[in-house]
């Protein structure tokens, strides 16, 4: 793949909808299944990923010419691990309030497929600025995916939204359990595919 020809807006939009990491690329399913029991969890993990993705993408795009092709994956992991550590330490030192909430999520990020995948598929072939926008798009796309799964699971499992009781009872406790994450992701993926099919059909009819 040669360098991308997309504009910055297209890159961001691409990450959020057309190539949404969770619903379209099916990357990073572990956190999408395991940690999305509430909107808040999704929001915290999503924003942590957003930052790490942007920083790692830019770093790899900047040093891509110096990486020996056979050790690129270890280098990516090393880059992500470095950024995760840096963010973890900085948060702990200067934003203790946010760290108390986000700490456990930040440490998990090193192993996320989405970040490594974007470095491999995009950042190592494109300029720093394009990678920055791609990082933002993918990060927000992931955040969006996490929050929407969290919304469904929190509403159905606990009857709350963002911790506020809206239903007054718990419809399906099953949705809080990890296994239900699979059902939830599956159903939402189908929903997104369905929207795409309908969208494309309309487009064809118009032409």
């Amino acid at each position, binding site marked *: 793949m040669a360098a991308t020809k997309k504009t910055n807006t297209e890159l961001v939009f691409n990450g959020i909808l057309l190539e949404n990491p969770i619903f379209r690329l099916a990357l990073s399913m572990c956190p999408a299944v395991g*940690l999305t*029991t*509430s909107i808040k*969890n999704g929001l915290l993990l999503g924003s942590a990923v957003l930052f790490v993705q942007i920083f790692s993408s830019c770093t790899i795009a900047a040093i891509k010419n*110096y*990486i*020996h092709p*056979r*050790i690129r994956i*270890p*280098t990516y992991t*090393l*880059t992500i*691990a*470095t950024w995760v*550590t*840096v963010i973890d*330490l*900085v948060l*702990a*030192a*200067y934003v*203790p309030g946010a*760290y*108390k909430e986000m700490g*456990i999520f930040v440490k998990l990020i090193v192993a996320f497929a989405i970040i490594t995948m974007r470095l491999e598929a995009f950042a190592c072939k494109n300029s720093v600025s394009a990678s920055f926008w791609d990082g933002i798009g993918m990060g927000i796309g992931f955040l969006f995916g996490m929050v929407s799964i969290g919304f469904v699971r929190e509403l159905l*499992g*606990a009857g709350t939204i963002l911790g506020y009781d809206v239903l007054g009872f718990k419809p399906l*406790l099953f949705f*809080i*359990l*990890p296994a239900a994450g699979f059902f939830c992701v599956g159903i939402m993926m189908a929903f997104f595919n369905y929207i795409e099919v309908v969208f494309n059909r309309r487009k064809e009819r118009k032409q």
Partner: protein
Amino acid sequence: MKEITRITIGLTLSCFFAALIMGAVFVVTDKPKKQNEHQHVQETMLGLLGYGSQKPAPQELKFYPVYRYIIEEKGTTYLGYMVPVKSADRETYELLMLTLEGSLVQRFPLKISPEHAVAVSERQNALKEVLPAPKTFAYQDQTVIARLGDKRVAYLLPGEFTGFKTFIRVMLALDPQFEIIGLEIMEHEEDPGLGAEIKQNYFKNQFKNKSFDRLKSLTVVKDPLPDDYRRYLDAADTINAGELETIRNQYRDKDIYALTGATISSRAVTNGTKNMVKRFAYRIKILDEVIAGKQIPALI
């Protein structure tokens, strides 16, 4: 051969740079990070005793930490308590070396101020001076004794036990009769939405007001949490005083209601708390007897 050299050099260099960056960040952030943690612990301790931003703690309230060590010498094990003492009008520390049965072997005055004793390395250095090889020592735990003037008002016990997944770190506040004043979960890695609920008021506040005798036989029951009790646990300040008293007395001697879908975590916290209090009560009695018997000018 040429390629393998390039790969090796490449990997080594990237690791070196990564290490350099992480090291630099660590050096810069280490101090504020430790300060934050220390402050967080202090705030938690005050919070457990009922003080906060709305109700500031009185000036006379002071925390005195006691550090417990295990000392080994020629195959014999001793207990070492680093106890804050008053000597020549200054606050300092003294190490009391006890046999496992609880009789005093030796007293060692330490050259360390209370401010410095907070740091692990400073304590290590001070102890090394009085306990030269072949004596070895290992840190076990600490207890904070809260005094209001010269009256003991509470014990604060930081502790750690196994949860459903990894360790659960807690802070426990006891009154001088070992009745639980409060329990706070400091750190845990239980499942969000399930075991992580141990952090919620409606679980951790169930431990409040459990007496030492009741605690010895405390277990977890899988009954649903009654509504009025839950309201009391979640927001006691919204209930009027008379009703509050009734609910408190009604549930005072009840067992712990398990969290839905997280019985193992609930049981872990209950048993962990039980063991912490039982062990502590045993130890502090021995320590108190030694201090009273030998008339040590201890500040606890």
